[in-house]
């Protein structure tokens, strides 16, 4: 699993902290253990020292008294063999490093060894005597030397000079120290082992923490960071999949909401831009169309005005009259064009309050308004009974039906009885209102073009070419759509529109 930088940093911190804690705990435990072992050792030393000072001298005196008595007979009889055997026996139960038997003349009789290397030497040191201490005790390092009388019944046969190696208590202390040192070494080895284990565990813990942090904290943040970059790059549909209930989850959800809002704004902007572009295009077309279509009557006015002048110069009054009628007709046409343009512009600007409108009734009212052309063309209009009631600007919606029915009447086909059907159909969730005729029909490539301003597929047909553009403008002003359907020339045409429900 790849670790995020935040996860790795947190993991390093936690691992370091854990390691420091564990190391501190181990060091503290080791220090306390070491201190405690030292304290115990010192206490044992003190206790043994105390016991020793109380008992050792008494024990040594007892030993000296025993040896002094036990060795008397052998020394008195000069039984060196016996003395040597006795010394050998004593060596078994006392830690003797040196044993000298000195005769009454202070001459060393034996040292207890077969070589008897100090035989005959005069012992120069102080020896215990009559009326003095019967025991001399001296300590040299760990060794203790005792000098005692070998006497019986007031007869001094000689002396014993014995050097004892570390006394049993000293040996015990040394063993204790060795044991303590060994224990401490073991303790230290254990601590080192524990430290190694703790290091490994901490490392594992750090990695685990890194993984968990990466999963729980760093990864969502990283993902949000990536998402922000994607959003900044314009990819607003980049989702953040963080399924958590904590602050990070809240942040991710807020981020998602922000992205959704941005997306909505972006889409709204895009729609507005598209709308604006469409309006610009329409405006361009409008400008072009207006300039072109308004220019045409003006050209007519100018031409016939010049003709009228020429005819007037020529004295052809009738022709002048005829020219002027044509000038007037062109002016009327121009007047109508301007009226229609004015109406078209009003659709976008003037909005009446919506009201409940019964469409069937409205359709019948529209039929009444265009009854003249309908009767002239013997067009039969059928209005469906199931037309609903909608909320809309009644006056504008009347204009929609009026234009559509009038348009259907214009393109009636001569070889069949003209018929216009006003109804509604269900197309998925939408209600589609339609005005269908069985007239000439429209080539599919012109289905959209018919809604353009001043667009007339057949120039011979009366009208300004504003009607269908007006229909689309009114429907869209209500939030709906308007379009045309036809299977081609000769198959009639159906003009549809939708209105928002509710």
């Amino acid at each position, binding site marked *: 699993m790849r670790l995020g930088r935040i996860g790795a940093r947190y993991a390093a911190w936690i691992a370091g902290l854990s390691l420091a804690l564990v190391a501190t705990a181990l060091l503290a435990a080791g220090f306390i253990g070491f201190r405690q072992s030292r304290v115990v050792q010192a206490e044992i030393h003190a206790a043994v020292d105390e016991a020793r000072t109380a008992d050792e001298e008494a024990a040594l005196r007892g030993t000296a008294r025993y040896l002094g008595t036990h060795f008397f007979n052998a020394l008195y009889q*000069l*039984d060196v*063999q016996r003395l040597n055997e006795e010394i050998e026996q004593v060596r078994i139960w006392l830690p003797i490093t040196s044993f000298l038997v000195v005769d009454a003349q202070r001459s060393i009789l034996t040292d207890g060894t077969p*070589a*008897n290397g100090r*035989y*005959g030497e005069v012992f120069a040191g102080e020896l215990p005597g009559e009326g003095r201490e019967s025991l001399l005790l001296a300590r040299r390092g760990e060794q203790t030397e005792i000098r005692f009388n070998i006497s019986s019944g007031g007869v001094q046969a000689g002396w014993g000079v014995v050097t004892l190696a570390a006394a049993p208590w000293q040996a015990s202390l040394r063993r204790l120290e060795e044991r303590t040192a060994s224990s401490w070494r073991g303790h230290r080895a254990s601590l080192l082992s524990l430290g190694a284990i703790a290091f490994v565990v901490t490392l594992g813990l750090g990695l685990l923490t890194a993984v968990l942090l990466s999963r729980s904290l760093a990864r969502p943040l990283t993902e949000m960071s990536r998402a922000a970059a994607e959003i900044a790059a314009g990819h607003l549909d980049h989702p953040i999949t963080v399924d958590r209930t904590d602050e990070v989850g809240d942040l991710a959800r807020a981020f998602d909401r922000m992205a959704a809002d941005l997306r909505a704004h972006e889409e709204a902007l895009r729609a507005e831009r598209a709308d604006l572009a469409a309006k610009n295009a329409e405006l361009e077309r409008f400008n072009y169309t207006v300039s072109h279509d308004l220019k045409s009557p003006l050209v007519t006015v100018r031409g016939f005005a010049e003709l009228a002048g020429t005819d007037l110069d020529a004295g052809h009054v009738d022709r002048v009259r005829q020219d002027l009628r044509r000038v007037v007709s062109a002016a009327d046409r121009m007047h109508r064009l301007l009226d229609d343009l004015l109406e078209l512009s009003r659709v976008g600007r003037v909005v009446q309050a919506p009201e409940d409108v019964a469409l069937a009734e409205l359709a019948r009212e529209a039929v009444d308004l265009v009854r003249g052309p309908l009767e002239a063309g013997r067009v039969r209009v059928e209005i469906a009974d199931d037309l609903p009631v909608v909320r809309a600007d009644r006056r504008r919606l009347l204009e929609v039906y009026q234009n559509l029915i009038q348009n259907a009447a214009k393109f009636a086909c001569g070889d069949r009885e003209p018929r216009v059907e006003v109804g509604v159909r269900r197309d998925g969730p939408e209600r589609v209102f339609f005005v269908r005729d069985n007239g000439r029909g429209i080539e599919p490539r012109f289905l959209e073009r018919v809604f353009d301003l001043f667009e007339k597929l057949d120039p011979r047909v009366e009208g300004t070419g504003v009607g269908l553009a007006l229909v689309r403008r009114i429907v869209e002003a209500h939030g709906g759509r308007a379009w045309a359907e036809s299977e081609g020339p000769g198959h009639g045409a159906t003009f549809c529109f939708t209105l928002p429900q509710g």
Partner: protein
Amino acid sequence: MRVVALAARLAPRTLGTLAALAFGVPGTVGPAAASRPPAAVHLGVVAEEPNEPDKMLRIFAELLARLREQLQPRAVRVGGLVIARDLDDLSQRILRGDVDFVIETVFPTLALQERTHCVEPSLVIFRRGQREYRSVFFTRQESPIRELADLRGKTLVLQVLRSTSAFALPKAELERAGLTLVPADDLRSRPGDVRYVLAQAEVNQAIWVLHGKGDAGAFNDGNWAALPEKVRARLRVFHQTAPIVRGLLSFRSGLDATVRRAVEEALLRLPDDEAGRVALFQAAGLTGFERLTAEDRAGLRRWAPVLRPSQAR
């Protein structure tokens, strides 16, 4: 070697019972048993310390163990060590058939022969490499004693009455020189007699001479060499005897010949391996055995009247 006087004072019967109880000594067997092959062969020794049997047991334990190991394939069982309090006790045990072979120096061996008439020396023993030894007479460096004759009226420090080199041989040498050896506390002694005291151990003999408890001493040349350097340096040898074999291994006459041969061969083979050599050396410094030659037997015959073994204790 020494014998503690206390042991001598104890009643023989009491000691015999004690020894039988303590050392696993076989029960009393009548003289007739001497002609029967024993269930197991037993080595007999005289205790140096009658009240300390462990010393002798320690000395001979390994030797007996090795013998058991060697003789087991030949169906000869080696029994426990028989520790006698003195030569008289040992003689009785030999006569009862409790003891089948002994290791002793010449003087005690001759004494056992004389008392039991059923002890037959078979092997010469080597001790610390010595096949034979001699007794040396020594005195202090500054002593005026130069020869045996100078010992008249003097005190000679000897070891024990049973010792060959430290009693019997010096005594015989003195008698041959026309001197009489008498105990120092003998009220019947004459001024020209050589008085003797017993120091129980060789090293004591030397020390006693040096400390004036005697004027001279006598023990074997091996003991002389083993003295501590500082002690030997203060002494001087002024006479020595003719050599005599170091010691003898003798069998009880009634012992089955096959068994005797098996024991002899096992003993002769002991020095062949390291374990055997160690076991031998633990037994008071033995280093080997050799069959007794005719010359050895002739020598023993010569020594017998001289050493007067009947006086041995």
